[in-house]
């Protein structure tokens, strides 16, 4: 018998002949790819819009400058007023980092797959296994109670790093994984990791370098033990298979000060700062998402110079509202398409088809949108679908039996005549144009009138 090494290439080629591509998969695969590209572009746009509406609370929480960092001089810029080099965290880091991926994960759960994703502690354990590389049987988790913002902090540790029985030593470091339901918020909603912070890794500064081509990461291990080392992974985009820059920082007890070259493909990065023991096991990690310099584009402009956030609207909703206004103003069909999932979007009397060709045929159907979005919205909880922000508020009035002066003024602003208002009063309901965005920022419907 020939040696295995010699015959293996032929054997593998022979085995690979078992499968041939199914031509019917080409069209749906390419459709998904084109949608993903549109959504990726949209995600960048939305993230940048979030600079205006956002703030730096998330980054402040993840990169506390108040940490005492031996040997380094943490500058206050990460927690000071927004400046040219400040960064804004993205909404999620693992496993889903785009609205499309989140929707797909939710669909999988709704179909009965991966039920563990509805449990924040189990999702945190999966993060420990997949990102930190811990053996499943070694992962210990303790979930906290949900915060007022709906997030849950899950403390994880590696039992394999605890002192052996009968020996003494420091306990395994704890890492707190923060999770949120970024889509549905009921018992069947998927949980996603939005960040991680360990008691071991103390970050003093994380910011875009002054020349805008990379990140500066400064920090130290709060409990540096012999031969524990630090490394940084920077994922240059929002998907886990994007290029990752790996920087080994060694084991200097004085701390680390790293400049990591970044050329993000979509204007975002996910940063993971690891601490390793001498065996190469990750003992703890900090992880967070940031906006960063993108390849071929300039760094984000200074924050705080755009429009103020819409009062009462969550950031994703406010960002989508603005993106809709921008897209309609420019009749930018690609931009509008990127805000929509044709499988779930409802327009006119249709459901589940792509509205863009229809709107392109007759753009005037979009004319009422700016006026609609100028009015206040109402929040509607729709069972099985989650929270919707619906414009105008008149949709939620329930009855227009009596039309107040304010309502009449607003109805006129929507271009409705007194005769049409009278029809609505007689019908007892608002029948004008309306638009809805769900809590994740996905544009869910636009009905120009009627029904």
């Amino acid at each position, binding site marked *: 018998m020939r040696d295995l090494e010699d015959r293996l290439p032929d054997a593998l080629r022979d085995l690979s002949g078992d499968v041939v591509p199914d031509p019917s998969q080409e069209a749906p695969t390419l459709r998904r790819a*084109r949608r*993903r*590209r549109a959504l990726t572009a949209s995600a960048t746009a939305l993230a940048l819009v979030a600079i205006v509406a956002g703030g730096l609370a998330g980054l402040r929480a993840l990169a506390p400058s108040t940490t005492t960092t031996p040997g380094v001089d943490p500058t206050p810029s990460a927690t000071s007023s927004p400046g040219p080099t400040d960064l804004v965290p993205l909404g999620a880091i693992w496993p889903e980092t785009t609205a499309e991926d989140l929707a797909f994960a939710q669909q999988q759960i709704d179909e009965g797959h991966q039920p563990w994703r509805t449990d924040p502690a189990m999702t945190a354990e999966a993060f420990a296994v997949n990102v930190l590389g811990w053996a499943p049987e070694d992962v210990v988790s303790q979930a906290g109670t949900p915060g007022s913002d709906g997030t849950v902090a899950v403390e994880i540790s590696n039992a394999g790093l605890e002192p052996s029985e009968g020996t003494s030593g420091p306990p395994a470091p704890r890492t707190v994984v923060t999770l949120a339901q970024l889509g549905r918020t009921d018992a069947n909603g998927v949980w996603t990791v939005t960040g991680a912070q360990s008691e071991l890794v103390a970050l003093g500064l994380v910011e875009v370098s002054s020349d805008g081509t990379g990140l500066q990461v400064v920090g130290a291990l709060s409990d540096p033990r012999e031969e524990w080392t630090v490394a940084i992974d920077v994922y240059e985009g929002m998907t886990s298979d*994007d290029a990752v820059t790996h920087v080994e920082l060694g084991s200097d007890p004085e701390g680390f000060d790293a400049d990591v070259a970044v050329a993000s493909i979509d204007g975002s990065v996910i940063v993971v700062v690891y601490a390793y023991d001498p065996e190469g096991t990750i003992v703890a990690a900090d992880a967070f998402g940031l906006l960063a310099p993108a390849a071929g584009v300039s760094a984000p*402009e200074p924050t705080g110079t755009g429009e103020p956030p819409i009062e009462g609207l969550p950031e994703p909703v406010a960002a989508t509202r603005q993106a809709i206004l921008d897209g309609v103003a420019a009749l930018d069909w690609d931009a509008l398409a990127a805000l929509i999932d044709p499988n779930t979007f409802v327009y006119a009397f249709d459901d589940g088809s792509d509205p863009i060709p229809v709107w392109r045929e007759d753009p005037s159907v979009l004319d009422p949108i700016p006026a609609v979005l100028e009015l206040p919205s109402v929040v509607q909880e729709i069972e099985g679908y989650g929270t919707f922000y619906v414009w105008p508020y008149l949709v939620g009035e329930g009855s227009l039996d009596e039309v107040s002066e304010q309502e009449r003024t607003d109805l006129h602003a929507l271009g409705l005549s007194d005769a049409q208002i009278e029809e609505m009063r007689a019908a007892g309901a608002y029948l004008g144009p309306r638009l809805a965005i769900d809590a994740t920022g996905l544009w869910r419907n636009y009905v120009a009138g009627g029904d």
Partner: protein
Amino acid sequence: MVVTQPREGVREAGGRLDELYRTHAPDALRLAYLLTGDRGLAEDLTQDAFVKVLGRFHDLRNRDAFWWYLRRTIVNLSNSHFRRRRVERAWLDRQHVEPGVPDPDVTDRERMRQALGVLRPEQRAAIVLRYYEDLTEADIAQALGVAPGTVKSLVSRGMARLREELSDDA
């Protein structure tokens, strides 16, 4: 201030995407099959890989290296799949090892498929990339995101296990 992809590029890419799919789909599917040993799973992974890579085609720094990006994505997706399955099994306490009862009637091809299936996913990926894709250790290390020394170890241990499995059948 808002960064978006150039729309002209999106239109231009339409035909190119079709060509890329048709050119690489057979190789991608075969690689995914060798990595997973499961025809249906290989089809799913291949489609997901195309969606991911074609979905950001304009962002690729070197578009001529499309196969390189696609191969790396298939390997990543395959490894992620097996990691996820391992996690699920542990949590749901459903783990059960199929007894390795040799079937005297199976073909050499099926023996090879079964033997590959016994390897750890990382070992299987390293061996497939080495002996099917004919990559160097450095290229395998890049594709798997591990150190070159780790590749050497993965291939060595994987081959030892493979010999063991196949010799039982011989």
